[in-house]
């Protein structure tokens, strides 16, 4: 699990509170990618490599404003993580975005039906992330 360095205080939007995104991906390349995209958009980012670690972190640190997770991960998929978040009274308000390299309509619909905020196709681009901006309070 790696944390970002402190940001410059300006959030991904107005106000003093910087928006904190938890990025979950088992691929080190994709973690570095999504972290860079989010940081260049001035978000504070924490990356973890599994759903299990994501839930551990969420249990400790309730100041996560958004979760962005890969779909296909060993042990716990992004879909399973989404379900666990939405089933939890403490966590269910946190928007969850799913990323996947595969464009499978059933999969996308299932995730959206389970309460996912959005579904991004990989490789993720900065323009995809700026689209998410408006959804985060």
């Amino acid at each position, binding site marked *: 699990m790696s944390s970002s360095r402190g940001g410059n205080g300006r959030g991904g939007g107005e106000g003093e509170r910087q928006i904190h995104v938890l990025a979950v991906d088992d691929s080190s390349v*994709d973690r570095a990618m999504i972290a860079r995209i989010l940081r260049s958009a001035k978000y504070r980012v924490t990356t973890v490599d599994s759903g299990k670690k994501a839930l551990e972190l969420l249990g400790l640190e309730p100041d996560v404003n958004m979760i962005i997770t890969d779909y296909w991960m060993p042990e716990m998929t992004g879909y399973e993580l989404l379900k666990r978040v939405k089933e939890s009274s403490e966590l269910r308000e946190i928007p969850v975005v799913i990323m996947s390299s595969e464009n499978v309509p059933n999969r996308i619909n299932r995730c959206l039906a389970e309460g996912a905020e959005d579904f991004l196709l990989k490789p993720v681009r900065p323009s995809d992330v700026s689209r998410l901006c408006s959804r985060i309070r």
Partner: protein
Amino acid sequence: MALMALREQLDGLVNSMFLEGLLDDQFEQLQMLQDESSPGFIAELITLFCGDSERILAELTKLLDQAVVDYQKVDAFVHQLKGSSSSVGAQHVKLACVQFRQFCEEHNKEGCLGALNVVKHEYYLLRGKFDTMLQLVDVNPHTEEGQPEGQVASHVVQHLQDPYQQNGVKLYRMPETGGIWIL
């Protein structure tokens, strides 16, 4: 003079990789994400990609060496490699992975062995060019204590006549490319 030549070499290399289809427009996205606040981003990503890829290729070689092949595991690894090659813009490697997955689905061992060779060929070809690229770029620009990297860059620009010394190696910054350090 020498610096310009190196810069041209780097640009020429990257352009030829685009022309040959080794890299696709995803790599352009990476170039746009690299800036003064993150000058080592491409180098970091390339290094992660190469480490991951070689680990995966070793696993695939082992799995396909078995008398009875576990195609599910093979497919999972190829899927991973396809994902990371897609993320860095490694087009030929990605396409080779797509074909590899077809053979996996068919449980075609010969096909898989052939596809693995193609992936390895494409990967090592790309890796050679990435190595050259990394030699033309320094990952960790020297930072003085208390100075964020952005400030160091302009500090160095002012002192191009008096280059930084780090471990006996002279570092310069090319202002036009923003964050690329030439050894």
